[in-house]
């Protein structure tokens, strides 16, 4: 994390990510907000690259940009009258207050925490990551996959029409 280039890249990325994140909040158009969210994801992927975690950065792009953002777009399109142009809501003031409180907490934690500094090269090969996932962290990994499977099945159950259910009951 040394060197002039890395520092410049960090600040550029930080500005980019923050502007994009602000865009998500400010954009009145829901679709625009999602596209700003994509930019935010890309900025975060850039941070991962700066931290020498290329694999995570690529996974971020594949999963968040390639899949999650597309799913959000789908959800917006499939929601009837979701309001392409959202106007002011009465939750604006409480939400702002809540956001300020949350930011205060975060900033306090960031400055208060006792960060441990790593001196050696933190680069982690993809194979080591994989080994860690199926050895040290195998239980959380499996729990996550079970959770995702349950979510998948639940989604399928939710969207089934009564006719299909009747057919399955007969079969």
């Amino acid at each position, binding site marked *: 994390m040394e060197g002039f280039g890395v520092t410049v890249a960090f600040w550029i990325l930080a500005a980019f990510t923050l502007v994009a994140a602000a865009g998500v909040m400010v954009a009145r158009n829901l679709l625009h907000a999602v596209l700003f969210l994509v930019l935010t994801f890309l900025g975060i992927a850039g941070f991962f690259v700066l931290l020498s975690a290329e694999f995570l950065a690529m996974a971020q792009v594949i999963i968040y940009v390639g899949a999650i953002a597309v799913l959000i777009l789908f959800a917006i399109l*499939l929601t*009837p009258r979701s309001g392409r142009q959202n106007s002011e809501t009465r939750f604006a003031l409480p939400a702002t207050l809540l956001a300020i409180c949350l930011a205060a907490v975060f900033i306090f934690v960031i400055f208060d925490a006792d960060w441990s500094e790593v001196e050696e090269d933190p680069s982690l090969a993809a194979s080591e990551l994989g080994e860690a996932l199926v050895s040290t962290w195998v239980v959380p990994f499996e729990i996550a996959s079970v959770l995702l499977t349950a979510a998948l099945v639940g989604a399928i159950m*939710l*969207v*089934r*029409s*009564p006719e299909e259910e009747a057919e399955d009951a007969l079969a």
Partner: protein
Amino acid sequence: MSSPIKSEPFVINVGPQHPSTHGVFRLKVTVDGEKVVDAEMIIGYLHRSMEKLAEERTYTQNIPFTDRTDYLSSMSNNLGYCLAVEKLAGIEVPERGQAIRVIMAELQRLASHCMAVGAFVNDTGAWQTPIMWLLRERERILDLFEMTCGARLTCNYMRIGGVAFDLPKDFVPQARKLIRDMPGFIDEVEGLLSENEIFVARSRDIAVIPPELAINASLTGPMLRGSGIAWDIRKADPYCGYEKYDFAIPIGYRGDAYDRFIVRLEEMRQSVRILEQALDGLPGGPHSTQVPLALRPPAGEAYARVEGPRGELGYYVVSDEGPSPFRFHIRPPSLINLSVLKEMTVGGTVADAIVALGSVDIVVGEIDR
């Protein structure tokens, strides 16, 4: 119907300007997602009021109008109209004239089916390759027409009492060459498409018309035969000496888009058979009877029909002894085949609707007249 997730129907206009409506034809499709829930056709963009215009012109002057109804099969249209007037006026056509008419009608059927099959396959998404191959062969047929009557598309070749000109000297050898190449070429198209897994998946069990509906909805031509009904006016009510030729009627199995496709291909083969026999037995003699230019048929009415490439092409002519028809009605096969459009498209996807429309083989000039 009460799915937990409600979706709103969505109206899309397929046409009037659309790559696969084969002209200015508009299909108003209401879709729910990809599924078609309603389809309505809106036609009339090409209406030229031919039936009214024909009441002001003499019987001979009306022949060019018939060219311009179904512009892909002008010879058959001419033939149907001439037969109707001949039936009305009681005119006999000499042997040679009849044979030439048969040759021209069958060549026209080949040309028209080339276009129909090509456009249909284009609608299923085969990116222009089959239609290019088919158009290549159609060119050769149109060359024969050009050689005979000077026009390629709107031939205006038939006359009341025969045909306009005798065949040119080169015609018979060139036509023989064409029909010698034709079966191999049809095999080529069949090899490209008939067993093609994707093509079969796209057209099999799409736009199924059960035989009862096909009869009740007055369908004709390959649409009727695709549903398994053996009906061909050339066999049932022979005109122009079709009873002399040996050919068979191809009929389909289930009445889906694929059956219509294979019926059309087989009809091309049968046409080649008829052409071979007609060219072999081409009689001599005059090609036409002398008919007064200002023909005044006796009062009455006549309904004559021919088996055009798209089906039963009927002409209903009423005469009041005047120089022009009192009433001139065309029974357009394309239009009447479209009467089951809703039955074919509703329930399928948008892509199926396009395939269904392609399998009808519409010509908008004939629908709107």
